[in-house]
């Protein structure tokens, strides 16, 4: 790990219990700017809980989550997003009753105008620049041909891409991805990997939770392994691949990828 100046996101001693279940115990994580960090672990290891703590959906019992030195604890989800953290959910969270283009434009508006802007007399169609930009991201993700369709009619894989476009149009500093390729065909998965590699070139920091080891080893700079709520290993992909504790956790959990 290099000096702390380039650390953009860190989790310090986070604990979270649900009832009697220790979902997260003493989790520490530090992600450098521009890095792609994968978090892997068997089912029920606490990966999604960790991500929920990151975006303010769940408050940790103890510990702090910091983004660019600012604590995220107690902040509302919209506040955290306005700081530059965007998230792709495990089940696609989109606006099913709006067109794809409108879905992406909504995201773009909040990046430009902030958490609230009262603009009842402005015509939507006058927003040329935003329109172009949103179309650009739809093209980037190969769904521009459906731009005027309702998002509800998309396949599950396309919904994920739409959600990714909605996040990317905001140029977030940190992108959190919760199983971005789950339910996708092999072809679509590879396409998504390509897109995510392309963003990496732009220097966006990413945290990916993923089951598919093909995706993890194609994208990750560093991997953290979570098992039973604790980080049991962290390192470069090759190190983690050969780590005994990791193999045990995966085989012991009955999970093999």
């Amino acid at each position, binding site marked *: 790990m290099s000096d702390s100046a380039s650390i953009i996101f860190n989790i310090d001693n986070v604990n979270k219990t649900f009832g009697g279940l220790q979902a997260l115990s003493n989790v520490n994580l530090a992600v450098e700017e521009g890095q792609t960090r994968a978090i892997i672990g068997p089912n029920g290891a606490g990966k999604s809980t960790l991500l929920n703590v990151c975006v303010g959906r769940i408050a940790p019992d103890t510990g702090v989550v910091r983004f660019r030195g600012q604590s995220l604890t107690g902040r509302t989800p919209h506040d955290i997003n306005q700081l530059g953290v965007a998230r792709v959910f495990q089940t696609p969270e989109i606006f099913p009753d709006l067109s794809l283009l*409108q879905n992406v434009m909504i995201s773009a508006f909040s990046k430009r105008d902030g958490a609230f802007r009262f603009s009842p007399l402005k015509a939507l169609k006058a927003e040329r620049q935003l329109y172009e930009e949103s179309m650009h991201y739809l093209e980037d993700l190969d769904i521009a041909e459906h731009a005027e369709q309702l998002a509800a009619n998309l396949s599950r894989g396309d919904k994920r891409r739409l959600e990714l476009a909605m996040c990317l149009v905001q140029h977030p500093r940190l992108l959190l991805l919760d199983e971005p390729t789950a339910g996708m065909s092999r072809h679509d998965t590879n396409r998504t990997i390509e897109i995510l590699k392309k963003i990496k070139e732009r220097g966006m920091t990413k945290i990916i939770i993923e089951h598919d080891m093909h995706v993890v080893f194609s994208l990750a700079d560093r991997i953290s392994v979570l098992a039973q709520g604790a980080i049991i290993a962290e390192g470069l992909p090759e190190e983690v691949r050969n780590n005994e504790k990791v193999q045990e956790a995966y085989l012991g959990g009955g999970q093999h990828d």
Partner: protein
Amino acid sequence: MLLSSRSELRTLLIFAAVVLMMPIWLLPLGAAYPDLLQKFAIFGIFVIGYNLFFGLTGYLSFGHATFLGVGSYAAVWCFKLLTVNVLPAIVFGILVSGFFAAVIGFICLRRSGIYFSILTLALAQMCYSLAYSVLTPITNGETSLQMEAHDARLLDSWIAPHVGDGLPITHLFGIPMSGYPGFYFCAVILIISFWFSIRIFNSPFGLQLRAIKSNQERMQYSGYNTRIYLFSAFLISGMYAGLAGSLMAAIDPLAGAERMQWTASGEVVLMTILGGVGTLIGPMLGVGVIKYFENIFSSYNHDALLESFSFLPQPLAEALTFVVSPFVGEGWHLTLGILFMLVVIFLPGGIMEGVDRIRARFSRHKQPQQTEQTT
């Protein structure tokens, strides 16, 4: 998706023409008399505002009649204290109901879904009870608030003291606000209200409200403070209701608590759903149907029915009258109830869904021609 401003203008012009010519085209339907026309226009404004909130955000408010009532009371007080010119009364009515909407919205929007609806209903019933009994000095309770000869009317008495014993009549710079002038005044305000609603529908703000209806959580994770959006929409629709309420008072300077009762709140929900939630025109069609039923169907009685069936042999006419009579006159609610059920079951999107389906059927007939042109 993106309406050009030209088509916006066209919609507005057609709407204005239809509204202003209501006294002509409603003649064959027997509905072209000022009282009913005024009701069409005023409830049109009320329902446009209601639809801006319920239709766009999906939050079902059961308390909008409160703002209608508050608007009426505020307007009548303006008549009593300042002047019988309707313009200040309308402004005052909008402001006071806006204040009420701000307070009630602030409280109720802490919850969503059914809890929001129940909160609005509870607060509205509270306001009704206050108006009906507790605040009698302000609202005159059961007897309704009305103008009296000894009212101050400061502005009027300063400009030109009222002479004579009778009550002064409400006016707009000398034009009395009853009969057809009253209708045209309401119609112009309805058209302006409709214009504002088109603009909201086609603005980023309107899109953001619809996105809240579609997936509020995503909105929050996309960086939006959704509560302020909901609050703004609630405030606007409350002010629309206040505008409608003050117009009611302008036409007939009387404000009673029954205007604030929960049945009145329910009526606006019914109108919106019947016409088509979230559509521009739909809710106003709902107003048309319900107010028409309320005023025309209810006026049919046994004898009137017998007369209209008089071209049939007498036994048949009597039999028909026997069958139909429970559905008219006092029983008009029965007809409305059946119609409402039919619409909700077969056209969940309201009357507008029916219109869209018919339009789609026609354009399907046209489609082969279009493809020929393009290929």
